[in-house]
Each structure stands twice: as structure tokens, then as C-alpha cells.
């Protein structure tokens, strides 16, 4: 594995996507297989829940979002190897800032556009006034 540990023989950061452990090929393949299994499980649950009548209907959107966030976490950990270790601090901080911007952008847009929709006159009345 060509990462900084091997090249320089000292404790440095890791590039995003590199794995920190020296576990050998089998260990790494098992890591990807674990990620794949968890992702399949979460995806299957998502698709099942979206079409079922077995659960309380208003809970479905929340459940779908939670499952999606969980699966993103699985991908980040098992495929992109973003960890909480000290060699990953920069990668995690960049990710955290990205997530902050995404939340502000999506939450802010939905919030303000919802209020605008709420305060706008219904379209048919608006059309009548313009006549």
C-alpha cells in the first residue's frame, strides 16, 4: 500500500481514501465486503419501506432520510476510509465544513421558499388582478 506511512516511515496524515491499517489484502477485501453488505441491507430496507403498508405512513419519509444518512456513513467509512483517527483530522474537518454548507443551503432554501409560498397570493387570484 503506497501511503505516507510507508513512504516516510513516520506518523503523518493520510490522504482521503487511503487506509491506515496494514492488514494485508484479505483484511482490506473483507472491509469492502462489509461495506457492501451493510449498504445492500440499508438500500433494501429503504426500497421495502417506501412501498409497504406495514408501518405508520407519516413515519416513512423520516425513516427514508435516516436510512439514507446511515448509508452515506457506511460509504464514507468502508469505501472512502474517512475515520476519526488522528491521521484523518484534516479530511474530517473538510467534510464537516462541507456538511455544514449543505445543511445551510438546503435547509435555508426550503425554509425561505416555504414561507414565500405561504405568503404568496393563490395563483388564480393573482391572474385575476392582472386582468
Amino acid at each position, binding site marked *: 500500500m*503506497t501511503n505516507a506511512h510507508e513512504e516516510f516511515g513516520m506518523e503523518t496524515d*493520510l490522504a482521503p481514501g487511503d487506509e491506515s491499517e496494514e492488514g494485508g489484502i484479505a483484511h482490506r477485501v473483507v472491509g469492502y465486503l462489509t461495506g*457492501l453488505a451493510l449498504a445492500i441491507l440499508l438500500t433494501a430496507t429503504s*426500497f421495502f419501506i417506501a412501498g409497504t403498508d406495514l408501518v405508520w405512513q407519516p413515519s416513512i419519509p423520516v425513516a427514508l432520510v435516516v436510512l439514507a444518512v446511515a448509508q452515506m456513513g457506511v460509504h464514507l467509512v468502508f469505501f472512502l476510509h474517512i475515520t476519526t483517527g488522528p491521521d484523518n483530522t484534516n479530511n474530517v474537518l473538510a467534510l464537516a465544513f462541507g456538511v455544514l454548507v449543505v445543511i445551510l443551503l*438546503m435547509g435555508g432554501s*426550503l425554509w425561505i421558499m416555504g414561507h414565500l409560498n405561504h405568503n404568496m397570493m393563490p395563483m388564480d387570484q393573482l391572474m385575476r388582478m392582472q386582468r
Partner: protein
Amino acid sequence: MSSVTFSEDDPHALGGLGGEGGHGSAAARVWPGPAPKRIVTGYGFWIFILSDIIMFSAFFATYAVLVGATAGGPTGRQIFDLRDVAIETGLLLASSFTCGMATIAADERNVIWFQLAMAVTGALGLGFLALEAKEFAGLVAQGAGPTRSAFLSAFFTLVGCHGLHVSAGILWLLTMMAQVFAKGFRADIQRRILCFALFWHALDIIWIAVFTIVYLLGSAA
């Protein structure tokens, strides 16, 4: 001083300067110098991926705001085919796994396994694109193209933008296969493989948001 070492990549990177010859106190910590090129490149590309995700979040916000603006046209529940979406999801997930196998093969400098895993990854990606193209063509044929309503404009922009990323990813994948074939596992090629793997896994993460927010929530609600 014997402790001064130079990295091959960067002559300015001093390793261990002043480690022993200094004051000898425990507080004299060794400054390892600039990060290795692999980290600089990977981190820079990580920043790009995060900004790409922020761009996608703008498209997601647009879609979420316009999802009800169907202008009398079809709603998501009427046009989405969840069976195809499930197959697309499976293809992309499997391709993410084979991309990981290609990463391991590249680290182990195994050409055959690398080319095999990359070829499978590319084939799965092409299958995904074919299904998406079929869906888009079907929608346009039944009069539900991007010009029909604001909802469909936002839908085609968001999902199409992801599809464009996958297409670019496949071109990049073929480039990496050709470069490994022609140049072998040089350090710079390895860095490109690292960035490609980041890109491909990130596309799968964005697809999770697409199939949840667009397709599943669109058909459930």
C-alpha cells in the same frame, strides 16, 4: 547533520531537520516538512469533491422547492419506475465495490486484477447509464420532458447532472486503464487512481441522496 533527509518528490521537504542537534529537550519536536504529494493531491481533490457535493445540494434544494410545481403535468408518483431505480442502485453499488477492488489491486501493483476490476466497474457504470437513458427517453416520449413543468425541469437537471458525472467518471476510468497499460503503476498514476476512486465513491454517495429524495420520497408521498 545526518538527520536531514530529502523526499524524492519535493526537494524543499526537509525531514527531521534539527531533530538531534538542537537543544535536546523533549519540547524540540521534529517538523516533518510539507506533506507528501499523495496527501496534497488527495486532499485537494477531496476539497473539490466536497464543493461538487455542495453544487449538488443546490440542485437538490431547487428540486425540493419545485417538486409540487407540476403545472397540471404528471407527478413523480405517476412517472417513476422503482424497479429500474432499484436495478440502477444495485449496479452503482456493485461498481463502487469493484472500484475498491481496483484500488487494492493498484496498491498491490497487480496489473491483471486492476484492469479486470476497472473493466467490471466501467461495465456496471455503463449499465447504469443505459437504464437512465432509457428512463429519460421514455419520459420525453410520453410528453414528460424537461419543458413540461418546473418539477420536470428540476428532475432532469438533478438526475441528469449526476448522469453526466457518471459519464465523465467512465471516461476517466478508461483513461486510467490506458495509463496503467502504457505507463505502469508510477507514483503519479497511483495518485490519479486515488482521485478517481474518491470521485467514483462520491458519485455513489450522491446517488443515495437521489434515489431517496427523488424516487422513494417521490413515490411514497
